[in-house]
Structures are given as structure tokens and as C-alpha cells.
């Protein structure tokens, strides 16, 4: 049996110097192709079944101001509803600007502050970072905790003693471990995957931060946002979340020519006076983020 075409060529039909092109057909099937299967099929399929290498390299990101200049330290101010206004049924935050509240607003006594009781020192705020500002679908990426401090803000200038709790601001200063060795460093740097940032458009990667204060005195978790632009008596979900909500503060991680930085980028509501984010204070003071309690 032949599996090729059969042609008869007569000499008289051919001119001088004729050539005949013969097609090199490759449509044959080897009966035993085990070697081919191993090298071309199995090995390839095995290779296809192996997961690609994912790069888990994380880097330090340093905070920057609005001009992407790295800052040495910055401050968090937390402002809660005052007990008096809660009691009289119309909750209001302390002050009218971007100042912090005081420790008496959340129930601490002078002894707590002076003696650094466990319930004081174990209270902290958590900055949680999500991939999107939509609560129903976002994923928690990472978080950072900052514990209560008795720093210069909380001390009398002359004696160095802790201020009375109704004067002791709820503020937290975090600083660069090299440039500001005397400050608290937890919460200053962010740590994230290098390749995710490098492969993002413009090498900028966006996450969204939410702040919660954990009060060890009463076990309560307070939600705070970097804006006062909401009606305490009519809080709606769409006021809180989304790109223009008040609780999600956009944070951009950036590879700036090999220097990895991040900065807080407030939306319109978070930028309203008094602003929640002031990274370039005109008076030369320390860059400050202020968060206000949302639900009383």
C-alpha cells in the first residue's frame, strides 16, 4: 500500500533541462511517538502547569508632601465629640479648626496619663489600607498601629510634667528612624510590594487608608475620617465611602526614580476647611493629618 500520489512521466513530454518539483509532504503519523510525546507534549504541559514566579519583595516607602519631597516627621491629630455635646444631644467636635481633641474627651483621667496606665498605653489607632474605597468589595492589604504617646505636646513646657487631661491633646508624632531618632517610628514608613508599584501606570500605586481608634479604657473602636464635612444626624453610606467619601483617604505609593515614597491625597471633602490633610503647612510647623470622629 502506498500513501503517495502516483504519476507517470513520459520522456517525450519533457523538454530539455526540465525539472520536476516534488512536494515534500509531512503528513505522516509515526506509529510509536512516545519520545515525541514526552519531549513535546508532557514536558510542555508540565511546564505550563507550573505557576509563574511571583515577586514578594517589599520595600520601605517614605512619606512625602504635596511636592513629593520626603518629610522627616508628621503628626496625627484625633478629634472626638466632646462628652458635654454628646450628653446634650447635639454632638460636636472640639474646636473649629484642625486641632486635636483632648484625652478627657474619651474618658481618660490625669492618673491614666501621668502613670501611663495599661488602659492608656494600650490604646492605639490603626491605619488600615485597602485596595478600593468601596467597603463591600475592598480587600484589606495591610495596617499599621500607633500607640498613645506622652510627647512634647502632652507635657508642660517648663516642668515637663504631663498636662491635665482636659488640655492634653490626642496627637501622635511619627518620625524617620534615622533623621528623627527621638520620635516614634511605628507608622512612619509603609511597606509594600516593589513590583506592584513598578508595574503600575506612572509607577504610582493607589491604596486607601481608614483610621480607627481602639480605646483600651472602654473597649470601644471609634471610626474617624479626615473630614468634618458630614451631618452627624444623617450619616449615609455614600457620604462615607467611595472616591469622594470622607473615611477613605487615598494614599499613593510611588517609585520616584528609584526613591520609593508615599503621600496622602485628600479628596474634595477631605480638603475642605478645616482640612484633614495638611502636608505643607504654611506656618512651617509639622505636617499634620487630622481625623474627626464620625458616629458619636
Amino acid at each position, binding site marked *: 500500500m502506498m500513501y503517495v500520489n502516483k504519476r507517470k512521466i513520459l520522456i517525450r513530454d519533457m*523538454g530539455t533541462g*526540465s525539472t520536476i518539483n516534488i512536494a515534500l509532504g509531512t*503528513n505522516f503519523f509515526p506509529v510509536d511517538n512516545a519520545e515525541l510525546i514526552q519531549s513535546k*507534549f508532557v514536558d510542555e504541559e508540565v511546564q505550563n502547569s507550573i505557576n509563574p514566579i511571583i515577586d*514578594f519583595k517589599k520595600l*520601605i516607602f517614605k512619606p512625602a508632601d504635596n511636592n513629593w519631597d520626603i518629610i522627616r516627621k508628621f503628626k496625627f491629630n484625633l478629634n472626638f465629640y466632646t462628652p458635654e455635646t454628646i450628653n446634650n444631644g447635639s454632638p460636636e467636635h472640639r474646636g473649629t479648626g484642625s486641632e486635636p481633641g483632648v484625652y478627657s474627651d474619651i474618658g481618660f483621667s490625669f492618673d491614666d496619663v501621668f502613670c501611663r496606665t495599661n488602659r492608656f498605653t494600650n490604646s492605639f489607632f490603626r491605619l488600615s489600607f485597602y485596595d478600593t474605597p468601596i467597603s463591600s468589595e475592598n480587600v484589606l492589604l495591610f495596617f499599621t498601629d500607633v500607640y498613645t504617646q506622652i510627647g512634647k505636646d502632652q507635657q508642660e*513646657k517648663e516642668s515637663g510634667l504631663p498636662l491635665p487631661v482636659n488640655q492634653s491633646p490626642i496627637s501622635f508624632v511619627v518620625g524617620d528612624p534615622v*533623621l528623627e531618632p527621638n520620635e516614634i517610628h511605628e507608622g512612619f514608613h509603609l511597606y509594600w510590594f516593589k513590583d506592584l508599584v513598578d508595574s503600575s501606570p506612572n509607577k504610582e500605586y493607589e491604596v486607601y487608608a481608614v483610621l480607627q481608634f481602639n480605646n483600651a479604657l472602654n473597649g470601644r473602636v471609634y471610626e474617624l475620617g479626615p473630614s468634618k464635612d458630614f451631618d452627624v444626624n444623617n450619616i449615609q453610606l455614600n457620604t462615607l465611602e467611595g472616591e469622594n467619601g470622607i473615611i477613605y483617604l487615598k494614599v499613593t505609593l510611588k517609585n520616584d526614580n528609584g526613591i520609593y515614597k508615599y503621600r496622602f491625597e485628600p479628596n474634595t471633602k477631605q480638603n475642605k476647611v478645616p482640612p484633614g490633610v495638611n502636608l505643607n503647612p504654611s506656618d512651617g510647623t509639622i505636617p499634620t493629618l487630622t481625623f474627626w470622629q464620625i458616629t458619636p
Partner: protein
Amino acid sequence: MEKTNKILLNNQRLPNNVNVNTQLQIGLENTNKPLPLNDIDTTVSEYEQFQKERKESTIYRFYGVINPLISNPIFNDNIKIYEGLDEGGSVKILNKKIFSSNIFEKDGWIGYYNDEIDEDALQSNDRKSALCEFFPFDPGYDRLKFLDSDGIPNYLIKITYPFESRNDIVLVRNNVGITINDGIPIISKFSIELNGRLYTGFKTVMNHGLSDGDNISLLNFIDDTLDNSLKLNKRFFRVIKVGNRTNDDKLRSFVIDVEPQEINFNIGVSTIKRVVRGVESKYYIRRFKSITTNYTDYDLYPAAYGTSYFTDDVAAFNFKTDIDVKDLKDNLGRPLTELYLTVLKNDNDADQNSINTQYWLEQQKNLDPPNNNRFWTSMVGGYDLEKNENVNYNIRSYGDDNYINSLYYENIDESDEIFDGDIIEYNDNELLERVLENIYHRFNTVYREKIVNKREGYIYTPFNIIQIKEFSNYIHPIVNFQSILDKYNITNPNEIVELKKSFGIPDYAFELSTNVYKWRDILEIGEVDGIGDGVEYPFISGAHYMYLNERYYLQRQDPPCEFTITSKKLGLGSQVPPENEDLFLSYLSEPTYLNYEFESESDWASSIDNVGNVSPSKLTNNDLINYNGVDTINIFVNFVSFFGDYNLGTRDVAGGCVDLSLLKQKDIDDVC
């Protein structure tokens, strides 16, 4: 068939056409895919896949810590620099001399305790003493520490690798062109008695790398026998022992079995080479090339709980930049087995607007560029070699007037891409490099070197080895590839290359003769040979992670280990020029000031009511140096003069090798 072509001969197309040869392109495409005839089960080995990926990866990520040992025993001047009002009432940078009695050492740093209240510390009450804050003299923390708060790095860390070698440097000056390529120079000879007979010993200018029983060749030595029976150039000599008469100095002295009167040497000309199974070693300098270049290649931050025994802050680093060693070859053309964590002192290490920087630049303003606008001299390189005025590249001698003709590696800058490095011995019968001498970098402040003529600087070793792979401890048996080529008459170069690969002959193999090779295998990561050689480190995210724990020791160039007491006679009182009062005060401000004493005991007795033997720190112009109403009193002012091996100008502070118990007069309790 997918496609059918009909091809007509030319004479079939038109009546008068003639047939010609015709070429037809036929694509050889195979669209079939072999399918297994049966079900096939295959097990994928996670371990094998891991090994495969690890073997294929050439990416390295380095992180770790640097344990520094840094202080400032070599400082510009014992002054406090501050801003104040001048006589005209305008703000000006001023200085105040710190009396010898107020100079203190704290954790190795030389400086003073501030005599003015730190208002900020006082007000904030942050438990920092408002009075007794220690300030080092310049260069201080802001210029020397690995981690300092001015935000301007003091050192640059690079990853480098040896990429070429040079053998043209002249370690000992000579007129006949002898270089390191000719072996290790001899600088002295000694005789030594062993078992009742005399042997000859030689001292080398650098580490010789010899062991007892090694063979050496003696090159350009002088045969003092009458019949030239030593046959210096025709035989090798066995090293009887290493070390000198007292069995010390084993790294640079050795003894051979030749009577001392029979052999001699010419300095700079006579050299030795180690011999392994009849083959002389080669000697050369490795040169290093930078893989990383910038400060942005890594993060530097305080290590957790990072304080060394000497209270230096341990610095942690993490290289953001991945290091890819693919296609990189070392100086011998081999795949890289070593990288180097290279620490380089930089020049722009402090705020140019700080009052301290401004003060020193003002002092240097009359110097020629670039010395008028930089704090540090540029770096020079050399080795820790024997003290001899004919020796080049002796880093400890730099600045000594007796070594003015010496050669060094000059004008080294942290931004350089290529650096001269260590001195290596390599023997073709061992196929391993041995480091004989490490390179040192040296720098000093411009003020010290150019203005006050204090020429002792700081030195350090910049290169720290990172062993990324190791060579096998055995040499692969010799492969006579030529015999294969001859047997099968293979001459095609491409075939030869392919055949070499199939024989497993690496491209770095040493060619004994034409197509006869030997080599050492490079152990894969995780592979350990019979004697435990091999490397093992984590492989994650497609990269090799290596933790490095390195030291950085900033040393004195020539620590003065000896001292003498010197005295200067001075007259005080109403009968001597008033300049003597200033002179006396300047003596008290010398860092090396020790004490003063009266020439005559009667002077002491007569003055005791006026002055007593008060501490110099309490001196004022009114209570001692005037001696109002007193006739001339002669005093001897005593100083401690420290000196080291080299003439590098006045030394302000003793080396750590000096026993200061005789001189100790005060401690911190005297001030605070």
C-alpha cells in the same frame, strides 16, 4: 492536502516559449500535534522544580547589617563653634578654645561637655541633661557615623566584583622594572640558628602566604658562594619554617636552608615566588567594578536593638536594586563566585550651611581649589606594608616626608566605577586565588593636612567579601580533548565548540596545552563537597537572598603607641612681656597639655597665697597669669608628646595601644 498548485511548463503556456529551470518555494510547516495514545500521568516534583529555578536564577538580593567601629581621635581642633555677636553686634560664627582639662573622651569620641544650658532640653525635660551634653570635635557624628540625623549620608555602599587584574605596580622602588608580576619583594635578611647551625631568613614587604615546607623560587638573589653552587635560578628552595628568630612575624618572615654568608639580596630587585608542583605562582592586583552606583540603590536604617559593644549604632541595609550576575565574569574569566559589599567614605557628608562647615571653609579659604571648598581630602589607596622608605603603596606612611617619593593609588572617589583592590597569589596547579593583602583607603581633613600640618588620617578596608558560590575542593581530572579531536579528525570549529560542551569542559577551564584542560567545578547553591565547602542561602521570589553581617572599622592611620614628656619654660609675672600670658593660656589649651610646675620651690611658696595650684579650668587672667606685684616666676609647662611609627606631625590623642594610667588625671566627675 490543504492547497493544490498547478504548475505549467513554459512551453505549455505559449507556443514559442522555452522551458527554463523554475524554483518553487515550499514551506515546510508541520501543523500536526502529536497526541498521546493513552492516558499519561506525570508527577511534578516541587523540589526538582525549586532546584531548577534556583539553579537558573542569577538574581541576588542583599540585606544585612554593618557593625561600625567609628570615632574621631583625629580631629581638626579642640574648639567649640557657635553663633554669637561680634563686637559690631552682628551675628557671626565664633569659636572658643576648649582647655585641655575640659577635653573628654566618650565612647571613643573626643569632644567636650557643653558649658551652656540646653534650653530646649531644659524646657522639654526629656531626661536629657540640660548641661552635660557631649559634643564631639569636628569631624563629629554628622560626618563619621553611619547613621546620623542630618539626612546626608556619610558613606556610600556599593556592590562590586573583581573584573580584571593588573600586575604593573612596583611595591619596592627599583631601577630594573621589577613589579608585583616578578614576585614578592624581599626587604631584609636575617640569620637564625636552628639545631646548632645557621640558616638564612628573609623578611618580605607584604604577607608571603607561605607555610612550613613550601617550595619557593628565589629570583634575582645574589649567590655569594665561590662556585655559584646555590644554583639560584635552577632550583627551588624549601621553606624550613615561617617566622623570625623569636618565632614571630610568621606572615612576613621565612627561613630557608642556606647559610647566611652564602646568599644576599638587592632590595626592590630580589623577589620570591611560591612554587606548587613545579609551577610558580602569579602575583597581581585585582581591580573591582561597581554593579550598583547610587545611594538610591539601598535603604539604610537603624538595626533593631542595634548597638554594638562599643555603643556604635548598628546600621541595617536593604538593597532595593536586584543584582544580576548573569554574563559577569571575574578577573580570570570565570563565572562570579564572589561579590563585594564595598563601603566608601564620601566627601559631601554634612550640611554645607551648618555653622561648623562654614567655619572650616572660612579657615581654608586661602587654599587652592579644590581644597578651599571641601572638608575631606580625596582618598588614597594602599596596603599595610612593612616600614621602609623604598616601599610604595604603604598606606600608613602617606604624608610622612621621608616617603615623599612613594606611590599610592591617588584621587579615589566614591563615585568611581573602578577601584584597585587586593594583592592576590594564584597558582595554576591550585586554580584558586589567595588574598595576601587587603587594600586600605585613607583620608584626612583638609584643615589638618593643609593648614595645621597634622598628617595622620583615617584608614579603612572598603571591600567585604560576599561568597555567592564556591569552587570545589578538588580539581577535575585533566581532559585531553586534543586526543579526541585527533582520533576522529575533527577540525570544524563549531563542532569543536559543541563537543567541548558535551565533554563538560567549562569555558573558564585552564588550558595546560592545546586543548588539554583542567578546572575546578563551581558548586551549585546547596551543593556541599566532601570537606563541607559550598554555599546555601534562601531562594525566594525568583531571587537569592543573602544576609550580610559586616564590620566597618575606621582606624587611625598610624596610632601613636609611645609618648614622652616634653617641657616648655615660661616666665610669668610683672617683669616679663605680657605676651607670655597669652602663650601660657595657649599652652593650657593644647590637647597634649599635662601640667605645669615651678622652677623654684621658693616661687611656689611665695605664690601660694595668690593662686594656689588651681585647676586650669578655673583660671582667669586675674588669678594666676598676671602675678601682679610678683617678680618673674619661671614655670615649666609639661606636655605629653605622642609618636607613632611615621612622622605625620603632631598627634593630639594617644593610640589605644598606650598605657595612659601614668597620665590619667581627671574624669567626667570633674566637670559634671
